[in-house]
C-alpha cells in the first residue's frame, strides 16, 4: 500500500506549474529582447495554453496519471521554441505550429497503438507509404546543403524532411511485422523494407539518417531474434559496405576528412565544429544568458548546432541535463519493456528510445568532433517541423509501452501475468506474495480458452486502478467500463510474446 501511496502522491499538476514557471522566466528573454514583441508574446502564451489544455484534458477527462514524457517533451520543445524565437523571431510561429503538429501526432499515434489489431492491419500500407514517400522525395528534392533530403512545398514556404516521418514508420512496421510471426517470410519482408529505406537515404546522401535507420534496424532485429551472430554479421557487412563506399567514392570520404582535424579547417569544413567548441566553452557551466551568445550567428545554428547554443547561452549544465534525460528515457523504456502487454510494445519502445539517444549522440558528438559531423538534429530542441513531429511520435511509441497509458486495458491483468497483482509503478514487479484472490470456482484451463472475452469474465479478473478489488468482486461478470471486446487481455503464459488474435 505504501508503494501505491507513493505512486499516487506524485503531483503532476505541481510539476506542470514548475515547468510553467521555468518557461515564464525563459520566455521573457526573447519577448523583451527588442522592446516588447507582441507577436512572440502571443506565440509563447499560446504554447503555454496548449500545454495546460493537454494536461487538464488528459488528467481530468481521461484520468491519466502519468505525464513523465509529456513534461519532458513540453520542457524541451519550450527550450527549442525559445532559442528559435530568440534567433529568428519570424520562425517562432512556424515552430509553434510544428509543436502542435507534433502533439497531434503523439495523440493520434497513441490512439492507434492502443489497438494492436489495427496496428497489424496498418502494417503493410504504412510500409508502402513510407517507401513511396522516400521515392517521391528522391524524385522531387532539390539539392539542399549537400543532401537531397528535403521536399519544398507551397513556393518554398514549407519544406519537409520525409525521412523524419519515415523514422516513425520504420519502427511501426518493424515492431509490428516482427512481432507477429517470426517466419522467414516476415523477416525477409522487413529486411527488404529496411534496405529500401537505408538505400534511399544513401541516394539522398543523408548518411546521418541512414546510420540512425541502420542502428534502429539492428535493435529491432536483435530484440526479435536474439541472435548475436547474425547481428554481428549484419554489422560487419554494413561496415564493409560503408568502407567500400568511402573507398570508391572519394567525395564521400572527403566529408569525413575533417573529423579530428577541425582546428586545421577552422574557417572551412571545420567551421561549425570549432565554433561550437569555442562558444560552448565560452558559456561555461552556467551560460552567458539567452541572447548573449555568438554561436547564433553561425550557419545552421538553430538546427545542427543548437546544442552549442544551449551550452553557450543556457550553460553546459542545462545541456548536460537535456542529453542525460534522453539516457534516462532509454532506461525507462528498457524497464517498461519488461511489463508490456505484447512484444510489439517492447520492441517499439526500445527502438524508439534507442533511436532518440542514438540521434542525440550523433548530434552532440558530431558538433563537438567526438564523432564525424553528420548534420542530424537534436530531438525536440532543434528548429524544424519534421524533426519535431518525429520526436513526438517516438515519444508516443515509448509511452504506449507503459501499462499505465491505457488504464482500461490494464484492468485485464490476469493472475498468471508477472505483473499480477497489479502494481502500476513502472518496471517494478511486485514483491508482494502472490496470494490468489478468493475463488468461488476452479479456474478454467487457459490453453483451451482461446477467446479473450471469456477469460476476462472469470473471477480471477482483477481490475487495476482506482477501483478496489472489493468492488470488482461484487460484479465479477461485468466487463470493465470502456473496455471493448477487441482489447487484448494481458497474459504472458505460453503465448511467448505473440499477441493473441
Amino acid at each position, binding site marked *: 500500500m505504501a508503494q501505491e501511496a507513493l505512486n499516487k502522491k506524485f503531483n503532476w499538476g505541481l510539476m506542470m506549474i514548475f515547468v510553467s514557471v521555468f518557461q515564464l522566466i525563459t520566455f521573457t528573454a526573447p519577448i523583451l529582447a527588442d522592446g516588447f514583441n507582441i507577436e512572440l508574446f502571443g506565440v509563447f502564451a499560446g504554447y503555454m495554453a496548449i500545454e495546460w489544455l493537454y494536461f487538464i484534458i488528459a488528467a481530468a477527462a481521461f484520468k491519466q496519471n502519468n505525464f513523465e514524457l509529456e513534461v519532458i517533451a513540453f520542457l524541451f520543445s519550450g527550450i527549442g521554441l525559445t532559442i528559435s524565437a530568440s534567433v529568428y523571431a519570424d520562425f517562432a510561429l512556424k515552430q509553434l505550429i510544428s509543436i502542435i503538429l507534433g502533439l497531434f501526432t503523439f495523440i493520434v499515434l497513441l490512439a492507434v497503438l492502443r489497438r494492436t489489431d489495427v496496428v497489424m492491419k496498418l502494417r503493410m500500407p504504412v510500409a508502402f507509404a513510407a517507401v513511396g514517400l522516400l521515392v517521391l522525395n528522391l524524385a522531387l528534392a532539390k539539392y539542399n546543403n549537400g543532401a537531397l533530403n528535403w521536399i519544398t512545398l507551397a513556393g518554398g514556404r514549407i519544406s519537409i524532411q520525409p525521412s523524419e516521418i519515415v523514422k516513425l514508420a520504420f519502427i511501426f512496421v518493424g515492431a509490428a511485422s516482427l512481432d507477429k510471426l517470426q517466419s522467414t517470410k516476415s523477416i525477409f519482408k522487413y529486411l527488404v523494407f529496411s534496405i529500401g529505406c537505408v538505400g534511399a537515404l544513401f541516394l539522398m546522401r543523408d548518411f546521418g539518417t541512414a546510420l540512425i535507420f541502420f542502428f534502429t534496424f539492428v535493435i529491432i532485429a536483435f530484440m526479435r531474434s536474439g541472435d548475436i551472430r547474425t547481428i554481428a554479421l549484419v554489422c560487419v557487412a554494413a561496415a564493409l559496405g560503408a568502407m567500400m563506399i568511402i573507398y570508391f567514392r572519394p567525395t564521400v570520404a572527403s566529408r569525413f576528412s575533417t573529423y579530428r582535424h577541425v582546428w586545421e579547417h577552422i574557417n572551412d569544413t571545420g567551421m561549425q565544429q570549432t565554433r561550437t567548441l569555442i562558444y560552448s566553452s565560452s558559456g561555461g557551466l552556467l551560460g552567458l544568458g539567452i541572447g548573449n551568445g555568438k554561436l547564433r550567428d553561425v550557419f545552421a545554428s538553430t538546427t545542427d548546432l543548437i546544442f552549442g547554443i544551449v551550452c553557450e547561452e543556457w550553460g553546459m549544465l542545462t545541456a548536460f541535463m537535456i542529453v542525460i534525460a534522453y539516457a534516462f528515457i532509454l532506461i525507462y523504456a528498457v524497464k517498461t519493456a519488461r511489463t508490456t502487454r505484447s*512484444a510489439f510494445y517492447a520492441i517499439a519502445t526500445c527502438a524508439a528510445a534507442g533511436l532518440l539517444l542514438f540521434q542525440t549522440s550523433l548530434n552532440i558528438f558530431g558538433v563537438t568532433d567526438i564523432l564525424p559531423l553528420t548534420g542530424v538534429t537534436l530531438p525536440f530542441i532543434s528548429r524544424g517541423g519534421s524533426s519535431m513531429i518525429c520526436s513526438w511520435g517516438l515519444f508516443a511509441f515509448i509511452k504506449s509501452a507503459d501499462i499505465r497509458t491505457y488504464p482500461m486495458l490494464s484492468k485485464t491483468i490476469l493472475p498468471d501475468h508477472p505483473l499480477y497483482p497489479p502494481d502500476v509503478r513502472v518496471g517494478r514487479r511486485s514483491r508482494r506474495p502472490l496470494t490468489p484472490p478468493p475463488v468461488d470456482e476452479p479456474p478454467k484451463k487457459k490453453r483451451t480458452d482461446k477467446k479473450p472475452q471469456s477469460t476476462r469474465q472469470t473471477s480471477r479478473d482483477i481490475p487495476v486502478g482506482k477501483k478496489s478489488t472489493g468492488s470488482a468482486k461484487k460484479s465479477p461478470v461485468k466487463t470493465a467500463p470502456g473496455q471493448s471486446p477487441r482489447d487484448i487481455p494481458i497474459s504472458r503464459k505460453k503465448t511467448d510474446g505473440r499477441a493473441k488474435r
Partner: protein
Amino acid sequence: MNNTTKRAYVLYAFLLAFLVGLGAMFYAFYVHGGEWTSNVVNRHIYKNGTIASAGAVYDRNKQALVYSRDGKRIYNSDPTVRKATLHAVGDTSSFIATGVQHVYNASLSGYDFVNGVYNLKKYNRGNDIYLTLDAEVCKTAYKAMNGRKGTIGVYNYKTGELVCMVSTPSYDPENKPKNMDSSDKYTGVYLNRFLSGLYTPGSTFKIVTAISALENIPDIYSREFSCNGSYSTGDGKVICNGVHGKVDFEEALNHSCNSAFAVIANELGSAKLTATASELGFNTREKIGEINLVKSRFNVSSASKTDLGWAGIGQYTTLVNPCHMLTILGGIANGGTVVKPYFVKSMVSPSGEVTELGRTETSKTVVISPENAEKMKKLLRSNVKNYYSDSRFPGLEMCGKTGTAQLDTGESHSWFVGFSAKESTPYAVVCVVENSGSGLAAAGPIVNTVMQKICG
C-alpha cells in the same frame, strides 16, 4: 516475450558507450576550454581578428603596457615602451606566439570553466596580468640595441624575476608598418628571440666545455696548453682567434683560446661532453610559465675530431636559446642553485582576487654542482677582471664571457653572457647582437648600459 524484453538490456551497452562519450566531451571542455575560448575567431574576445576586450597587462611598476577601453585595445602611451615590450605583451592578432596576450589569453579574458567568459561580458574586462618586467629598463635596452637585431634578457638569479626582455626587430603595435612582410629590416619580427631564438653560441659555449673539464679532468688547473694560432686534430684544423703561446686553463678561458678548448673537447670525448651538455639542459624541452622555450641543440654523435674541436668552442651544429643560456649563467652565479627565469607574475580578477602565475622555482633541466659553480664563477670573474677590464662595467663586479659566433654567411653574432657578483645586485644577463662582429665590442656596451640602469 520474456526473452524479447530481456534482450532490451543490450541497450544498456549502448547507454554505457553514450555516457563514455559524454564524459569524454565534458572532459575535453574542462581541459581545452581555456585554449578554445582564446581562439582568434571567438567574437566574445576578438573583433575582426584582434583582441577587443580583455584585461590589462602591467609591468612591475604598475605601468599599463596594454589595456582595453570601449572594446578597443590600447597600448602604452610611449612608442618606445610599446616596441620594447611588444614581444612580452604580444600583438592583438596572436602573431607573436609567445606573447602574454596569446598564451595567457584565457586568463586575460577572465575565462573559467564554471562561468565561461561571463565576467568579461559583465564587467567588460577580464583579469589583469602583472609582469616582472620593468618597462623603463626594457626601453633603455631597446634604445641600446640601436636598430640592430638581437635580444637582451636580464633576470634576478635569486628570485628568477626577469626584469628586462627585449627582442629586436620590433614594431609599434599602434602604428604597424606597412612594409613589414617585405622589408629585410623586419625579418623574424614576430619571433621573441629571447624565448624562441636559436643562435650559434660561439665562445660562450666554452663555459659548458669548461664545466665538463672541471667535472672530468681532475688536474685541469695544472694543465698547460700551447697555441700557435690553430690546432691540428689529425683530420683537420681548428683555427684560433690569435696566437696565445703557452696558456693555463684560466688564461685559456680569459683569452678564449680555441686551440686549448679544442684540445680539452677532444680529451673529454663526445660522450662526456654530451653528458655535461645534457646536465645543463641541452636537447631538453623547457617551459617558463605556460610559454614553451625552444630547446637548445647539442649533437656530436657523428662528429669527427675536428668537428668535436669546433663543437667544444661553440661552433659546429650547436645552437643555443638565449633564455637557456641565461639560466645556466644564473645557476653559476647563484652557487649551483639554478633558478628558472619567469616574467608573468600574477593575475588579478575584477573583484580583486589575486592568483599567482609565476614564482621562484629551481630548474629541473639545468643542473650544476655547487663546487663547479664556484669555480666557474671565479673563472668568469677573472675574465672581466683580468681581460675585459672592470672599467667597462663600473661598480658591477661583473663576471662574464663574450662570444663571437662565426656563421657560414655574413658577419658573426656578438654574444655577452654574465652576471653581477655583488650581493646587492644579483642580476644575470644575456645579450646577442646579430651580425655585429666582436662580442665585447658590440654586446658589451649594451649590457653595461642596461645593467647600470637596473643596478644604478
